[in-house]
């Protein structure tokens, strides 16, 4: 067993580095730079029951050490995913995480059911997308609705379920606990923080959706804090993300309590980031004589 291997809700990842949903499509694009087998896993673009066109452009704005996006879950729908994307992903040695979203509990359930018999390794339940009017973050900002979605889906699928939490809440710990109690096998966090930019010349929001989700290094300290709080409060594994742009960040996130990490916005600045993170963690473990990356998960010693 490699010292980088981790187990996520029964799924073995050869290393703890996953590319984040919405930032790596269905794995075809970055595969042109390096084989996606270098990754521990890939979380695909948020997939809905039906095809979605997403929000009108402009969908991206630059911010200090970060970016806003308002894609709004553009995706071809679950059937197209199964037909056109999953086969090539399954032919590759990488864990496939299906990031899914719905506008109603029924939709979440229908997708869960449809994916139940499929080849995906793990469901990532996105109850935290800030860029869609219905569903999305609405489910992720209350314990009751978050638990409801998860409990209902639980009955429709035997796939391990990882619930993706919103940072735009007063108390992320109670939401994490609620979804754990409802049957989640893991939680991933953070999705994006809601933000806005305005163009001085036009006096209009840069994003056509007015607001969008903030990600990138700017949010890293918020993500570390939330991962630390949640990891201390739940028993299921926590996957940490938000602003990771180098291997040091990944280790910091793991010390805070993350079993694995996801990398999103950093891909846009440097598409090789995930590969460098894998190599960096490995070298650091070597230098520090640590034979198993799991040893550092949650190893921070608070004051």
């Amino acid at each position, binding site marked *: 067993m490699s010292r980088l291997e981790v187990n996520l809700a029964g799924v073995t990842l050869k290393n703890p580095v996953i590319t984040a949903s919405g930032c790596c499509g269905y794995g075809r694009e970055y595969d042109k730079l390096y084989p996606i087998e270098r990754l521990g896993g890939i979380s695909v673009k948020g997939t809905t029951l039906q095809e979605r*066109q997403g*929000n009108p452009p402009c969908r991206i704005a*630059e911010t*200090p050490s970060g970016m806003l996006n308002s894609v709004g879950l553009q995706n071809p729908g679950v059937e197209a995913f199964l037909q056109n994307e999953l086969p090539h992903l399954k032919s590759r040695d990488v864990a496939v995480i299906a990031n899914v979203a719905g506008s109603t509990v029924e939709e979440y359930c229908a997708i869960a059911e449809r994916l139940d018999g499929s080849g995906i390794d793990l469901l990532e339940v996105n109850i935290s997308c800030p860029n869609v009017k219905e569903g999305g973050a609405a489910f992720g900002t209350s314990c009751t609705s978050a638990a409801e979605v998860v409990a209902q889906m639980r009955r429709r699928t035997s796939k391990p379920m990882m619930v993706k939490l919103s940072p735009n809440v007063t108390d992320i710990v109670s939401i994490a606990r609620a979804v754990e109690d409802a049957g989640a096998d893991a939680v991933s966090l953070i999705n994006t923080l809601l933000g806005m930019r305005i163009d001085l010349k036009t006096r209009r929001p840069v994003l056509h959706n007015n607001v969008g989700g903030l990600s990138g290094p700017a949010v890293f300290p918020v993500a570390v804090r939330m991962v630390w709080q949640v990891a201390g409060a739940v028993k299921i594994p926590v996957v940490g993300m938000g602003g990771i742009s180098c291997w040091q960040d990944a280790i910091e996130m793991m010390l805070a309590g993350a079993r694995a990490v996801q990398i999103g916005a950093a891909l846009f600045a440097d598409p090789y980031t995930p590969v460098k993170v894998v190599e960096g963690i490995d070298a650091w473990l070597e230098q520090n004589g640590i034979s198993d990356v799991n040893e550092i998960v949650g190893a921070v010693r608070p004051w």
Partner: protein
Amino acid sequence: MAYLQGCYPLVGKEQLTAGIYSYTVSCPEIVSQAVPGQFVHVRVDGFSLRRPISICGIDTENGLLRMVFEVRGKGTEALAQLVPGQKIDLLGPLGNGFTPPAGQQVVLVGGGIGVPPLLELAARAGDRATAILGFRTASAVILAEDFRAHSCDLRLATDDGSEGYHGFVTGLLEERLAEGAPGMVCACGPMAMLKGVVEIAEAHGVPTQVSLEERMGCGVGACLVCACKTVRDGREVFTHVCKDGPVFDGKEVVFA
């Protein structure tokens, strides 16, 4: 199509006019893959997002790539500070280029900073190309000599009449098409200009290809932020400038 990422030396820097710079970068690997109309995604120190810049010249023999950019905001301002010898982080070549039918006449229509992506097309079409280039005013004219050097039929327009035709490129395009139909019109410039160009060309039954702009994240088709409305299989959908474009069939584009 393969693309690459790397840090390549800036070997030439020239200011073409106020606020517009021509950079020559030595990146044989990218150059060997590049076709006219594609772009490179340029990382600028201190900025979280790369800047897309069209490929203006492809010198395969020497492995040199040329790009011409205008200082528009903070990122291009920082980019303009580089000095030859420094390295520049490029991701490319990206997107789909222009594909004018081989051996036929082609009309190139460029407006302002939309002109550079057409230069390499002119280089390849030689005297089969008519280049109709529009600028605000005489002092804003760039690359005219370069187009001439490729022996194309160069027709300049300025909004204020200070050089060449007094008016918009669409006027010159009407004139040119009246002279006979080329195999294709390739255009790059502001949306309003592209709309006019496509309408005129269609009226003459000439196919068009236009290069679009949209704000980008990944540049490679992975993040879906660079949406533009196009007609595919009869319905309006959001395709993506970086992957499905930047060059689109003019008929596909839904001009707002």
